[in-house]
Structures are given as structure tokens and as C-alpha cells.
């Protein structure tokens, strides 16, 4: 027997049970707690008597001693140690404590017997007349679950589908009985402790086949792959180990010690679970906090975006209103004066030529200059405010735009539908976008035809501009800046108005623009409508709102 204090880390890497790995393995030494067991769960402390090995990190991230020393205070020997000594084949070893100051005997049982015993259960007949059995003691002191498959990242998944009838059978017949659990773990039940006809112990003697372990994936909510891996890496069953464990449980005194030990271990386990849960709650609160703050930031961002949008809308409105105002002012002052001057000059020019005389060259020259100036002013005005938009509306102004584009290009144009009147600045904005789409189509698309549609859909003014031109690759063109609004500017302006401008195009497939602007707030019912028709008798019912 190698007197190695060495502890195979692989054996404790959660192949069987994370809780086991998490609980400092103590000497099974009766009711008194060994110091190592009072150690908080997850505290890393190497057993003083063993060489430190690569740390074993259980799935919950806490650290456990690299090797485990079972300490024995007061020189009492544990049942396991005794079993190990009595069954060397099962692998047990006794080493001297390295800490001479204490001089305790340290017992290093091979962990397999420990685990067998840890996963064991004790069942009892409810009463002599009833064939039913009840759970008496065992893993976690009351919660049976399969030590082979409970390991999850959280360590909290329970299968709880262990067969109970195997213990019943063993008690009923007084003979060992065997069964497989739904996850494929082989269970062995036998009457125990010796001489007690009403009790039976259950050992988990062999791990499941990996394909069987998968069967409980849904029940324990563990990914099948994890279960498969766990089952594969579980240590194989060993009859001798099971036998050694069985002997411990058969021995009344040691069975009682085992029972106490199990209870304590259950408490540790629950404490560990509670700590893990507390950790999880803390983490989730942290997550929640950061989620909240992220949400706050998002809300703040959204709010400032809306503020910006509002600002943009106000700016847009101010800009368009201002343009219209400037246009009107120029039209009503400078332009009229020019026209007036021109007419006087024209009159003078005509008069100078009356009676067959040569017309006054100077007057004629001045007149021509003024005509040129009027033309320039007209161009400026048209750029500030499309002619006819105010008086006749969008459809009219867009028709003019279409006419201009089609002129000399042989483009067939079509404009269908009408839009009811909207606030002037909204009409200007929509006109700007639609005119941009039209001029884009004319300049870049080489289309045979351009169709413009105007309609109201629900509470939105919808303008569509479709051409059958070359189209473009949306990805490349959208960001390129050109003259005018540009495609990006178009959608941005639409968004300022609370609407959208969608541009669909593909090479050879024409271009389709759809501008959709909510207009409920921007309706104009008074001015144009009231002016374009003779006064009608007032609505007697007064229900027009």
C-alpha cells in the first residue's frame, strides 16, 4: 500500500458531486466537528499533512484544499478509516500528521469509499404492517438525489427520480436488491445495519452510461453534453469498494456514525448552497443594478435624442418658415420694384420709338438689365420657395419639378393623387425630399419613366417616387454626399418630421422612394380651402369641429 498522502485531484474534480468536492472532507469521527469542517465552505486551505497539489476548482469557482487530510482529534478513529484499514484492497492509508506540534493521526482514506458512503442512503420501514419505506438518512440528510449527475454550474440541480422500491424490496425480502435509476445509475440495496429487519441501505455502485445520463437532462435542466461528460468522467464502479462501504453500513455502530456524519455533511452542503445562493443573489443584484443604470442611460440617451429631434424639427420649421418669409419679402419688395422699374423703362422705350423714331438705346439697355435682374431674382425665389407650392400645394409643385426634369430627357412622368393641405413648412420639407428624389432619378437613373404618387394612409402623408432607371447599390450610395439633400439627408429630414424615408434600389431595378410623414398635427384646413371657393352657407349644425 503506497503510503502516499497524495490525493488524486482528478478524483475530486466534481466527477461525482460538486458538493462533495466543496465540503472539506473530514475524518468521520463521530459527533465532534473536525476543525476542517468548521472551515467556511470554499476557503482554500491545504491539508497540513499533505503536499499541496494543483488546486481543484469546483464548478462554483470556490477553491478547495488541493489535498484533503482527514483530521482526527482526540485520537478517535473514523469508521471510514477503520474500513480502509480493514479492507486494504479498497485503498486506505494511514499517515502520520506532518504537524508534530499536534501529533494527530491523520487518516487518508481513498476517496472512493468516502464517496460511496456519501452517496449512500438509509431507508426504514414506516411501520411493520406497511410495506412502504421512508427515507431515513443519506445524502444531504433527507434529499435524495443522484450523486452522479447533480453537478451543474450552480450545483443545485436535483433529479429526484431515484427508485424507492429497491429499498422496500431489500427490507421485504431481507436480501440485497438492485435497480437502475432513470439516469442509469446502478443502485444496490441491502438490509443494514446488521440485525435490523426494518432498515435497508442503498449504495450507488456504478455510474450511468453516458447515453442514459442524458435521459434526465430536462428534469435537472442540465445540458445533455454536460451530463454526458459527467457520466464519462465518473469513476467506474468497483465491487470491492462497494463491499467495503457496505460493510461500514452493515456495522450498527459505524452505520450510526455514518448517519451523524451524513447529517453534518448535509448541513455543510446546505450552508454551501446558501452561500452560493447568497453569492448568486448578490451577483444578480449587481447585474440588476448595472442593468438599471444601463437602462437609465438608455432612457437618458433616448430623451436627449428626442430633444435633438425636437430641436431639429424646430430648426427645420424655422428654416423653412424663414425661407418662405424671405421669399415673400423679396417678392413683395425688391421684385415688385424691379418689375415696376422695368415697366416704366419699357413704357419709355416704347414711347421713344413712337412716330418712327429710333428707340432710345440707353433706355433699352437699362430695360434689358432690369429684365436680367428680374430673372435672377426669380431664380433665387424659386430656390427659396418653389413657385406654386403655397398657392397650389404639393402636387402642383411636384408636377412642375417633374416637368422640368422630363423636359428634353424624354422621360414619361406621371403624378397621381393629391395631398390635402398641410402647414406650409411641412409642405416645404416634404417637397424638398420628394424633389430631391425626383432630381436624383433624373440625374443618375436615366429612367424611361418616373411615377409620383401622393396619398394619405391613415394619418400619414405618403409620397412615393418610383423610376425604372439604372438603380444603384444602396450600400455604396447612401453615404456619399452630393448636392442637395442626399439620400441620408432625406431620411434624416423625414425622421425630424417624425416620419421615414425609405429608399430601395438595386442595379438595373430602378429606384423606389417612399416618404411617409405623420400629418395629424400639421393639417391646414383654413386658409387655402376657405379661399378657393365662394363662401358657402355656414354649417347649421356646427358639427364640423
Amino acid at each position: 500500500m503506497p503510503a502516499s498522502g497524495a490525493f488524486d485531484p482528478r478524483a475530486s474534480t466534481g466527477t461525482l458531486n460538486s458538493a462533495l468536492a466543496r465540503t472539506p472532507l473530514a475524518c468521520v469521527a463521530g459527533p465532534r466537528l473536525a476543525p476542517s469542517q468548521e472551515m467556511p465552505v470554499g476557503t482554500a486551505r491545504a491539508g497540513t499533512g499533505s503536499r499541496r497539489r494543483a488546486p481543484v476548482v469546483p464548478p462554483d469557482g470556490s477553491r478547495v484544499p488541493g489535498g484533503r487530510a482527514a483530521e482526527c482529534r482526540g485520537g478517535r478513529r473514523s469508521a471510514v478509516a477503520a474500513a480502509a484499514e480493514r479492507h486494504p484492497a479498497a485503498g486506505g492509508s494511514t499517515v502520520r500528521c506532518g504537524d508534530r506540534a499536534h501529533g494527530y493521526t491523520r487518516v487518508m482514506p481513498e476517496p472512493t469509499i468516502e464517496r460511496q458512503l456519501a452517496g449512500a442512503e438509509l431507508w426504514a420501514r414506516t411501520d411493520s404492517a406497511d410495506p412502504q419505506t421512508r427515507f431515513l438518512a443519506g445524502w444531504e440528510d433527507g434529499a435524495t438525489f443522484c450523486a452522479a449527475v447533480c453537478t451543474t454550474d450552480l450545483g443545485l440541480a436535483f433529479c429526484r427520480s431515484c427508485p424507492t422500491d429497491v429499498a422496500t424490496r431489500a427490507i421485504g425480502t431481507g436480501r440485497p436488491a438492485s435497480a437502475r435509476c432513470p439516469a442509469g445509475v446502478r443502485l444496490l440495496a441491502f438490509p443494514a445495519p446488521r440485525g435490523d429487519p426494518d432498515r435497508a441501505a442503498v449504495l450507488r455502485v456504478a455510474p450511468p452510461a453516458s447515453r442514459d445520463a442524458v435521459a434526465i437532462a430536462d428534469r435537472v435542466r442540465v445540458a445533455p453534453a454536460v451530463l454526458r461528460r459527467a457520466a464519462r468522467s465518473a469513476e467506474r464502479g468497483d465491487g470491492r469498494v462497494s463491499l467495503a462501504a457496505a460493510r461500514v453500513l452493515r456495522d450498527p455502530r459505524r452505520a450510526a456514525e455514518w448517519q451523524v456524519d451524513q447529517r453534518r455533511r448535509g448541513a455543510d452542503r446546505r450552508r454551501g448552497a446558501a452561500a452560493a445562493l447568497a453569492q448568486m443573489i448578490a451577483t444578480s443584484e449587481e447585474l440588476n443594478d448595472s442593468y438599471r443604470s444601463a437602462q437609465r442611460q438608455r432612457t437618458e440617451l433616448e430623451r436627449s435624442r428626442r430633444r435633438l429631434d425636437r430641436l431639429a424639427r424646430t430648426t427645420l420649421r424655422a428654416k423653412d418658415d424663414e425661407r418662405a418669409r424671405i421669399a415673400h419679402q423679396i417678392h413683395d419688395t425688391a421684385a415688385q420694384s424691379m418689375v415696376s422699374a422695368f415697366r416704366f423703362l419699357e413704357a419709355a422705350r416704347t414711347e421713344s420709338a413712337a412716330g418712327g423714331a429710333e428707340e432710345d438705346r440707353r433706355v433699352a439697355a437699362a430695360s434689358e438689365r432690369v429684365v436680367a435682374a428680374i430673372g435672377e431674382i426669380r431664380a433665387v425665389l424659386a430656390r427659396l420657395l418653389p413657385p406654386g407650392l403655397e398657392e397650389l400645394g404639393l402636387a402642383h409643385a411636384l408636377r412642375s419639378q417633374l416637368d422640368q426634369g422630363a423636359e428634353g430627357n424624354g422621360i414619361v412622368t406621371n403624378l397621381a393623387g393629391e395631398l390635402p393641405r398641410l402647414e406650409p413648412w411641412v409642405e416645404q420639407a416634404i417637397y424638398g425630399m420628394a424633389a430631391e428624389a425626383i432630381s436624383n432619378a433624373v440625374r443618375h437613373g436615366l429612367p424611361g419613366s418616373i411615377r409620383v404618387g401622393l396619398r394619405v394612409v391613415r394619418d400619414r402623408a405618403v409620397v412615393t417616387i418610383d423610376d425604372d432607371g439604372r438603380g444603384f447599390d444602396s450600400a455604396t450610395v447612401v453615404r456619399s454626399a452630393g448636392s442637395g439633400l442626399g439620400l441620408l439627408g432625406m431620411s434624416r429630414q423625414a425622421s425630424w418630421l417624425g416620419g421615414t424615408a425609405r429608399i430601395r434600389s438595386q442595379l438595373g431595378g430602378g429606384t423606389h422612394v417612399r416618404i411617409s410623414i405623420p400629418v395629424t398635427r400639421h393639417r391646414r384646413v383654413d386658409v387655402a380651402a376657405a379661399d378657393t371657393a365662394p363662401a358657402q352657407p355656414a354649417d347649421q349644425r356646427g358639427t364640423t369641429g
Partner: protein
Amino acid sequence: MTRRSRVLLIDDHEMARRGLEAMLSTADWIEVVGEADDCESGLVQAERLQPDIALLDIRMPGVDGLACLDRIRAAALPVAVIMVTLYDDRRYVLEAIRRGAAGYVLKDATTAEVIATLAAVADGQLAIEPQLLREALASRDQEPPVTGTARQRAAAYSVTPREHDVLSLVADGLTNKEIGARLTISEDTVKKHVQNIIWKLRAADRTQAAIIAFKMGLIENDT
């Protein structure tokens, strides 16, 4: 050019009127009999002075030239209207022609051009280039189709089927309450529909909406 033509100038800009007057004074057969600086006084003058021709500025504050043209036509005054516009915008002119203008002159038209236009109109002709006239007539094609059901015609004005139902009942002279009862919808809903209809048909009130609907054939006459 044997007869004299009595001309009324309607333009909000006084200097522009003076200039036009100076221009027209070069033709001895033209007599400027009156001036008005807005549509209202223009209508009054037209009625009082009975001019042969009115030169009407398209852009005026308040009631603009096109609306004023509608009013003159509606008042059935025996005056030929020539629109005066700064913009050489065909659609603009087409609109004027469709509304019954006899001709148009640009503000930067030379004396000869203006007088030629007036002369043609005085002779009872339309002073409009044939090309433009053709377009003006052709552009009627873009009116809502005469064919199809009333409902389809209404759809061209974005009037929804439900609104069309309401419109028909409005034209029948029903109150909102009665319409609501008839269509089993609330009075508020009817009110909203009516507001939508008025807005979509560019009407001033429900009566005008009904009149427009009849004129445009948006509702069946037998309903």
C-alpha cells in the same frame, strides 16, 4: 383695333400698377379705368366699372390671384381675366387656364408682348400658346378618373371607404348623431371622419365637402 378696351388692374403693389399703367398708356386703344390693391376691392371695382379686361396679379397677400380668379368667375362678371405672374411656371399657368383665365403675361414681358396679349383677349381670343393650351387640356387626364365607382374616385383623394360612407350620409344632410346611429359608430368617431373628409377634400366645412363630392362625382347622385 377699332374698339377701346377698358382695363382694370388688380395688384397689391402700387409701383407695379404705375409701371403697368405707363406701359399700357403707350397703346391708345387701352384705357385703364380702375385699380385695386386686393381681391375684395377688385371685385367691387369689376362690378361697378364693368371693365372688359382685368389684369390680375397671381401673388397677393390674403386672397391670392388664383383664388380671386375663382371668385370673379363665381360672380359671373363679364370680364376677361389675364393673369400676371412673376413665375414662368407652366403648371402655374395651366392652373390659371383651367380656372378660366383668358391669358397670362409674365411680369418681365415687354410692352409689345403685353399689348399683344391684351389685343388678343380684347378680340375675344384666348391669349395662350397652343402648346400650353394642349397641355392644360391634357392635364385633365390627371384628374381622378371619371370611370370607376364613386368610391374609387374618392380613393384618389385618399378618402377611405369608411370615410366615403360618412361622406355619402353627410351629402344626404344627416347630422353627426344620425350618421353615427346609421353606421353604429360613436358621434366622436363620425366627427373625426368628417374632419378628415373636409381636410382631404380641401373643403371649408361639411357643406362644401358635400358640394365638392357631388361636383367631383365622389358620391352616387341617387343616394
